[in-house]
């Protein structure tokens, strides 16, 4: 379980450039949840995820992992293994001669045996859809999408209880994006790990997450199920976040047909609702 209690974070405290990035944030994420974290640049979400694994220390408040305040720990390395963080454009962290060695970097830092490391590397690679042959390649010879997957595997191989991904699909084309998101969903289902997905894309969160946390100006703005959050479309737009087009369309139609459901976010669901409304109109005629 990940818990943030009254966490605030101030950059360059005491200098004239002092900037409050987070104020009094309270979040609890239970084991096995799939949470979408959204907010535009500067909303504090990047700061937030760096607090999860101790890369940053809160200016006030506590970060608890499985009930332990990580501020009281001598070494944060164990926290890093428990909370795996995939940073933005993670392919830039690749450095080894082979993909295999690169994925093994995390497990080796954990001091695992060679057999266990080997098992984890292969498992993580299969999880992101990298073939055995790819493991012996140099990461620098691979395509952009493959590099991204190798980098994510490098975090997965640590088998973290909580996996945090910062914009894992940034810069990928639609099919590359869908592939990565599908793999993450699959991994969540197979390992039961907690997943926190940071993204700008409402469509992506809508497809994957069960719960959405919305950050705005350093504070927690919304925290609820996907449907709850998307039924507050007008508020989201005010924060500069675009709701899915179908949410907008069904919201517009509700003025005319009140029976149309709130918080619709997939095309299929919108199709069902609208088709039903249209057929009902035909019956009434």
């Amino acid at each position, binding site marked *: 379980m990940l818990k943030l209690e009254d966490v605030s974070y101030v950059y360059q405290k005491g200098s004239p450039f002092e900037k409050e990035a987070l104020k009094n944030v309270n979040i609890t994420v239970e084991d096995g949840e799939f949470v979408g974290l959204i907010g535009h640049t500067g909303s504090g979400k990047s700061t937030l995820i760096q607090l999860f694994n101790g890369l940053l220390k809160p200016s006030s408040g506590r970060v608890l992992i499985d009930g332990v305040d990580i501020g009281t720990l001598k070494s944060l390395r164990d926290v890093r293994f428990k909370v795996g963080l995939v940073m933005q454009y993670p392919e830039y962290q690749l450095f080894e001669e082979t993909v295999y060695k690169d994925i093994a970097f995390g497990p080796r830092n954990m001091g695992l045996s060679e057999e266990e490391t080997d098992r984890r590397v292969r498992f993580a690679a299969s999880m992101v859809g990298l073939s055995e042959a790819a493991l012996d390649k140099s990461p620098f010879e691979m395509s952009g999408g493959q590099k991204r997957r190798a980098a994510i595997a490098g975090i997965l191989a640590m088998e973290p209880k909580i996996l945090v991904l910062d914009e894992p699909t940034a810069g990928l084309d639609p099919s590359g994006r869908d592939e990565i998101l599908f793999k993450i969903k699959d991994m969540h289902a197979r390992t039961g790990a907690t997943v926190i997905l940071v993204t700008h894309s409402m469509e992506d969160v809508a497809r994957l997450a069960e719960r959405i946390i919305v950050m705005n100006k350093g504070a927690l703005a919304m925290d609820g199920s996907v449907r709850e959050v998307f039924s507050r479309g007008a508020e989201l737009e005010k924060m500069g976040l675009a709701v899915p087009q179908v949410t907008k369309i069904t919201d517009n*139609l509700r003025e005319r047909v009140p029976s149309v459901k709130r918080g619709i976010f997939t095309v299929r669901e919108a199709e069902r609702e609208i088709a039903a409304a*249209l057929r009902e109109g035909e019956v009434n005629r």
Partner: protein
Amino acid sequence: MGTDDIIKIENLNFSYSNSETGESTEVLKNINLNVRRGEFVAVLGHNGSGKSTLAKLMNAILTPTSGRVLADGIDTSDESRLFDIRSRVGMVFQNPDNQLVTTIVEEDVAFAPENMGVPPAEIRKRVDYALKTVGMYEFRRSAPHHLSGGQKQRVAIAGVLAMMPDVIVLDEPTAMLDPSGRREIMDTVSRLNRDEGMTVILITHYMDEAVRADRVVVISDGEIVRDAPPREVFSRVDELKKIGLDVPQSTELAYLLSKDGFDIKTDVLNADECTSEIERLLMQTGK
């Protein structure tokens, strides 16, 4: 000077050859494409489709393996005209950080005219014009690393505008930006085309950017598979999905409803158009 087609691509083929193995990989096949003055053309394709290579062929960073590319009537294979081509066909790249050269915004915008030997007073005029056009004039004395991604990319566009080019080619200019940065750039690009009459060629894999264009050229596996106005291109939902591209949710919704047997127009591009189509149907059914 001045044919009507600012870019003319005739029977172009392009292949890379691996210097070690000698193998050659075909990237672009039999491309024929003309871009008229004042047009806004989007080139849509997935990663590895060859669309970025096509961009680089337009201002002679690359030259065709066979066929030819004419930029304002100049053959890009003519090395003696290299700088004429480059100053006519401006190019904006994906990563804004890697195309800004100097430590002050206005100095950077001045970089190209300085290279071209434009007199200082004229450079000043061009720099001010370019920065005002992209809405970055008030940041003219700032350092690039203090700007947001969208702002940096607007400076990059200004840097190209200062050459007074005939056409601007943007190679995935928003791929590394957040939604607000993407909006900034797309608004800037649309305004450039509409208000300044600038010819724009936008290379992208985002369909919501391509819908702003007059014409969408879809590239898949090195070949042009469609060249038509956005309404026509996006109404072919199945076709686009098959080659790994998205369609707007609104278009997809209309498409699904029409497959369900409703009499809905399928060439809608945004939420408002889709809403009014559905409302029209509701009216017909008496609601």
